[in-house]
């Protein structure tokens, strides 16, 4: 059964949409990630215009983050103060990102910037995760290995506007999380992702937050960043297709349940290693498309 998507203005088989949602939902449940970095390229691959894919995926991530954050809130794993500051930065950053997106779309370079952002950031994060997990797996086989220092002092601790984050057991400058939030917000708006894959490692290694609160806090701030992208894209470009978002979500909710059950069967470093391989695979595929000669050097777009 085909469904005509009113904003994307293409018709797609309903089974493909729910299947995409379910498949990406399974992986996001398995690895505990949002899955935007998989879904947005897949939507573009299946013929959804890039602008619609990015905006619609932001809308869907609002839902999956709300659904995810509730469990973390019950366990008290959300640092609302830190989340609030990251969110403030994120709302500013994503607003800039949406403006940048409109501008790039107007000059015909949005596809290129989306692709380059994916290659650069997935490449960096994937490589870091892979080396980290391989190292952990090797170390666990070697008994008596020394653990590194948990917390290190560096120049970041010299910045002004210091605040106490009780839940994260930190006393650091608010400037750092604000800038981090803004940076990830820009990327979220352009790449059609929540940005958890950058935010989570940055919270651990850059801010020094305890791992127990990073996922919950990241999900909490992603809700507001993606909601902001949804609203601004609705107003500026009318590219949010909530029919598509709703169908993807339906599949994702079910897929995530199976994924999180499957995830319990694997160890943390094994999961991270697999996730790293998947991230690198997406990075390589998009990078390959950029360097290989396109079938047709000319392309057209109807302007309304």
């Amino acid at each position, binding site marked *: 059964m085909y469904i005509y998507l009113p*904003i994307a203005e293409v018709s797609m088989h309903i089974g493909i949409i729910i299947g995409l949602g379910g498949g990406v939902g399974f992986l996001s449940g398995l690895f505990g990630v949002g899955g935007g970095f998989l879904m947005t390229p897949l939507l573009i691959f299946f013929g959804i215009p890039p602008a619609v894919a990015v905006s619609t995926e932001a809308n869907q991530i609002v839902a999956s983050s709300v659904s995810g954050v509730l469990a973390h809130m019950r366990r008290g794993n959300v640092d609302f103060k830190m989340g609030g500051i990251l969110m403030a930065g994120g709302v500013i950053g994503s607003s800039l990102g949406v403006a940048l997106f409109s501008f790039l779309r107007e000059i015909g370079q949005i596809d290129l910037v989306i692709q380059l952002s994916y290659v650069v950031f997935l490449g960096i994060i994937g490589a870091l995760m892979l080396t980290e997990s391989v190292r952990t797996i090797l170390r666990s086989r070697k008994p008596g290995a020394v653990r590194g220092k948990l917390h290190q002092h560096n120049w970041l601790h010299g910045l002004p506007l210091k605040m106490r984050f009780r839940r994260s057991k930190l006393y650091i400058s608010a400037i750092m999380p604000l800038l981090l939030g803004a940076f990830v917000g820009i990327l979220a708006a352009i790449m059609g992702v929540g940005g958890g894959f950058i935010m989570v490692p940055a919270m651990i290694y850059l801010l020094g937050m305890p791992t127990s609160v990073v996922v919950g806090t990241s999900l909490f701030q992603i809700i507001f960043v993606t909601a902001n992208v949804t609203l601004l894209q609705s107003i500026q470009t009318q590219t949010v297709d909530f029919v598509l978002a709703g169908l993807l979500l339906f599949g994702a909710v079910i897929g995530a349940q199976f994924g999180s059950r499957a995830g319990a069967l694997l160890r943390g470093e094994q999961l991270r290693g697999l996730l790293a391989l998947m991230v690198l695979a997406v990075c390589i595929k998009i990078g390959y498309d950029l360097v290989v000669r396109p079938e047709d050097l000319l392309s057209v777009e109807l*302007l309304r």
Partner: protein
Amino acid sequence: MTRASASPRDISLLVAGLVAGLAALVLAMPAAQAAPSRLVADLSDSHVDITSSYHGTDLILFGAYEGVAGDDLILIVEGPASDIAQRRKEKKAGIWVNVETLIWQQAPSFYHMFATDDLAVIADEAALRAADVGPLASGLMLMTGEAGGGNGHGGGGLTAAGATQAGSTAQESGLSRNMVNNGLWQLQPEQISTQQDMLFRAKLSLPSNVPTGDYLVRVLHFRGGVAISEKTTDMNIKKAGLSALIYRFAHDYSVFYGLFAIAFAVASGWLAAVAFRRG
């Protein structure tokens, strides 16, 4: 009451009846050899609604003409005019980048051709151009944009694109190739079936990405390489039902649409969490 419960069979009977009626009409008229030949054309449906379940549709174009053996017909379905951005990629620093944007002004967003024979057999190029056959026949305006850019606001000079302009041929054939590949143009004419140089009939398959708006269906009657008669009829394609409602909501009340999309996402996310916690 048969019309209320029309099955595809009934519709095809109705169409056949209409064609027969038209043919009878033509036959009843006194043959006037000198005057332009009479030509009647119609569509099985002149309004196409794009609803939520739309995935392309077929229309029958039919009519009657006063022909003699050896006559030919060309049928053109032309969509609403739209500016079309044409981008060219070049390799820069190892990657393929859009380096140039050209804007084709008011080009047909949809152009499907049907004919009784190869176009080259029906008439020569000059005659086809004179009869405005082909999406580029009327000489589209080409606006040059800046490198990689060009949304049409300033910075671009206007040049008329025609066969005479040097370098325009590659761009024209690129436009045709891209538009054919995305299914919006059909330049290798599809077959028109005729009966006794009197009746004609062709099947138009609308793709799922068909542009909405007012369409023009043109029927041209060729004799000895010259167009002796032309008839046009209108067609309209529009979004309808739920998909039209959502589209209008998104465009006319975009702030509320955005807030609604967020509320919808928050509600369904919360619902999913609750449902699976219990289950």
